[in-house]
């Protein structure tokens, strides 16, 4: 059964004069959390702005639940927390969020109730009636999230939600985002903070200079990046003896000894190596205490894709 496609980009390009914001981006995003990654200028914010109707695509079309964006019906299902850090500074968080709830079509009483609920949900229950101008960065980020969730949207777009947050606030924001994904919403999180994104999701979209470089599960993407052999690190009691056995395998590209008890090697066929290592260790009486793949993670994938983006993956 095909997973539901919630967000659809069909060959979307966006120029700002002669500057290319997005180039022929086609992608499908379903429910759950998707990390939108890329260096500065990659097109992440442009992609979100096209999705929210802030900017129109120069070419191509964008759909949410099959409806072309922008449209008033699509806005009813989209909640958006932009990157901007400015609000209606003269208002309290309660007033700000209530006004936006009313603008979303709620009557006064419902708007006030929903505003209070979402502000509680993001942890601002003690600061509801303080003016936004007195808020810290973390409180502002949470206010932005609250206004994005007012109308219980099916699609939640978060542009750099972790910016300016301390570690505790980041952890709390990460938990909130994971709850949204668990509730079946399609959550797109644009971020530079790779380890936080990695904790929330393994589904990523990688942009570079306006182009889609990769989309999918981070581990599957890693497996497909052939030009960068996989690194594997082993901690054992006889690394040199194990290395002597491993060097006979055809897929081994390089070997290193970072310490007296650690062996690190590179291979283009990690599965074959994982199958061979236990047998070799037994045969040579080597005790292995740890095994890891230092670059089977988002940071490495991101680095490999964006430092040499000729081989995009999807």
């Amino acid at each position, binding site marked *: 059964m095909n997973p539901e496609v919630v967000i659809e980009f069909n060959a979307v390009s966006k120029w700002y004069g002669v500057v290319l914001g997005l180039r022929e981006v086609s992608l499908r995003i379903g429910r759950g959390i998707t990390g939108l990654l890329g260096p500065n200028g990659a097109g992440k914010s442009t992609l979100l*702005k096209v999705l*929210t*109707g*802030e*900017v*129109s695509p120069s070419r191509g079309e964008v759909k949410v639940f099959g409806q072309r964006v922008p449209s*008033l*019906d699509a*806005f*009813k299902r*989209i909640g*958006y927390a*932009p990157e*901007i850090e*400015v*609000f*209606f500074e*003269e*208002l309290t968080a309660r*007033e700000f969020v209530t*006004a*936006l709830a*009313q*603008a*979303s*079509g709620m009557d006064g009483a419902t708007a006030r109730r929903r505003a209070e609920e979402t502000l509680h949900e993001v942890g601002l229950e003690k600061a509801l009636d303080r003016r936004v101008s007195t808020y810290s960065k973390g409180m502002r980020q949470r206010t932005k999230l609250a*206004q994005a969730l007012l109308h219980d949207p099916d699609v939640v777009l978060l542009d750099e939600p972790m910016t300016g947050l301390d570690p505790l606030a980041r952890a709390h924001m990460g938990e909130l985002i994971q709850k949204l994904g668990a509730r079946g919403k399609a959550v797109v999180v644009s971020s530079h903070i790779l380890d936080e994104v990695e904790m929330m999701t393994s589904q990523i979209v990688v942009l570079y200079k306006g182009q889609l470089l990769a989309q999918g599960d981070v581990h599957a993407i890693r497996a497909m990046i052939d030009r960068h052999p996989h690194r594997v690190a082993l901690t054992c009691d006889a690394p040199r003896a194990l290395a002597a056995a491993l060097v006979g395998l055809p897929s081994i590209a390089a070997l290193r000894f970072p310490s007296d008890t650690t062996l690190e090697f590179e291979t283009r066929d990690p599965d074959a190596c994982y199958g061979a290592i236990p047998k070799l260790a037994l045969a040579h009486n080597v005790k292995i205490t740890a095994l890891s793949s230092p670059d089977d993670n988002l940071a490495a994938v991101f680095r490999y894709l964006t430092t040499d983006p000729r081989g995009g993956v999807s």
Partner: protein
Amino acid sequence: MSALTVARTVLLRASRRPSTYVISALAFVPALFGAILGSQGHGALAGGGPLALRLVAPLMVAAMVAGPVGESFENRTVVYWFTRPFPRWQVLAGEALGHFAVASLALVLAGALLAVANALTGTADLASLARIPVGLVLEAAALVGFSVAIGALVPKHPVLAALVVLMLSEGALPMVWDKLSYLSLAYHTSVLTGLPFSFLGGASDVAAPPLAVSAAVLLVWAAAPLAVASAVVRDRDLG
């Protein structure tokens, strides 16, 4: 209706902004000027009237309205409205409604102070003074509609842009050719309020139009720029 929500928010924000009250203090200037002239026998309205209509009102409203509206586009806070499920033109309509409430209060205050100055220094014509608030409210509507439109269309320098256009329509063009006064919103406000258009009460060479025509011109000043801005903003990229 969402425009009303925007209007209420505009009103609440303006009431908490110190600049609203500082700018509104300009309302005292025509009365002070009028009182000085009145005490010298020229008549308070002769000096204060044109000052209020052609200088103070445009300055006050451009600063109070075009500035904040332009800022909301420049810093993108307007995105919070534009990503809600209602058309963008309703945001501009709401901005105009909310700012109209504030601006009309400020202009009526200016008119009331001028009337007091006139009463203290000369003959108080109560019947004609009753026309002043109505005329000033219509001038407020015209200036607000125009200023909201300028704020949306020229967000980087909205106050400057508004003042340049108003300097032309209210000052330079009528001085070049009398008949261009028919474009001036201050001229039509002077027709409605009975306040002099020319400084020191000099007679104008143009024939005064009927009151209904002047009221209609002011409404066009309010509506036409807003319609243009709504059409432009509907499809314009925000950043």
